[in-house]
């Protein structure tokens, strides 16, 4: 197997294991089954930033968790409003309006994303023996395209290729998929390759 495809296959496996950890933590919080798509891994450059997604103007709730330490990058959760409403109703035991979320509800989503992010990063950090620190989350509600535009630009702004692992997840009571995107910044990709003993 070539080095390049070995790297992508390894990352895909990271995505499968870590995504499973994150989903398990959500399943515990919601007391329901969480479904996951298979990991998708790709390398990104500046020109790949705009997706061909036809749903770029769809309004989504997004939580961004940058991380640093032995690896730099960010985790992005893109939640559709129906899922957010279903989730918040379940954990807060009351009706909420996903179009006008209150401070407490936003904090709940941030906290949930932090828990899922910790579970996700644990798999990668323990395999690589990395110390990774997850920073405070930031939350925003906007068009999906605008969110991706900003976050992906942040990841590639140092002009190196960044790596992206993405997975969709959903629950049976709301089958519209949400997205979990793991981004490794370009300046950490070399170190990651060295740890895995592969070249870019």
């Amino acid at each position: 197997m070539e080095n390049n495809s070995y790297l992508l296959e390894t990352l895909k496996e990271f995505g499968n294991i870590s995504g499973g950890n994150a989903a398990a933590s959500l399943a515990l919080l919601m007391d329901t089954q969480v479904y996951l798509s298979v990991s998708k891994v790709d390398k990104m450059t500046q020109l790949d930033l705009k997706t061909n997604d036809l749903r770029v103007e769809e309004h989504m709730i997004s939580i961004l968790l940058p991380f640093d330490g032995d690896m730099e990058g960010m985790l992005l959760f893109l939640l559709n409003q129906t899922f957010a409403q279903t989730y918040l109703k379940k954990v807060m035991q009351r009706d909420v309006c996903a179009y006008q979320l209150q401070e407490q509800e936003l904090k709940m989503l941030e906290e949930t994303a932090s828990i899922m992010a910790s579970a996700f990063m644990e798999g990668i950090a323990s395999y690589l023996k990395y110390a990774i620190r997850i920073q405070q989350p930031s939350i925003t509600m906007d068009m999906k395209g605008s969110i991706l535009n900003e976050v992906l630009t942040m990841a590639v702004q140092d002009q190196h290729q960044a790596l992206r692992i993405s997975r969709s997840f959903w629950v049976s009571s709301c089958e519209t998929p949400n997205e979990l995107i793991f981004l490794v910044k370009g300046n950490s990709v070399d170190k990651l390759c060295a740890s895995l003993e592969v070249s870019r």
Partner: protein
Amino acid sequence: MKEILAKAGEIVVGDRNSIITAKALGSSLGICLYDSYDRCGGFVECLLPKCTKDERSCYVDVGIQQLYDQVTSISESHQPLIAKLIGGASLFQGKNQQHEDDIGHRNIKMAYDVLMQLHIPVVAADVGDTFGRTLHFHLDDGSVYIETKRDFIYHI
């Protein structure tokens, strides 16, 4: 009217019968150049402020120059152009970021610098803030209609 969908880093020019649409701008900056005499113009969406490696129009410095070249090449009147800027937001501004380091902020600053060097006045701008924008650039009169997340529509 012919609607043209602009992709990031792609230069689009048109005449008075065109509307240029760019969807879901975040930190990237939309630059509209317009010749009000000939009623033609062009648009580019740039992602990052400065090009250091290659000459691609997804960078503000290169993108504006290439857009200027293309608009002046289709303009018969060679009248001075005007510019409108849209985008450059910072959706996650807050705890983890400082304003000066925002990509959106740096894109805006670079655009003003480059446009000043080209002697193109910025007649209107809807930039910065913390929300994404979709824009429709009407080349019959140079107006730009902007849509935001709460379905507000206004024009500059």
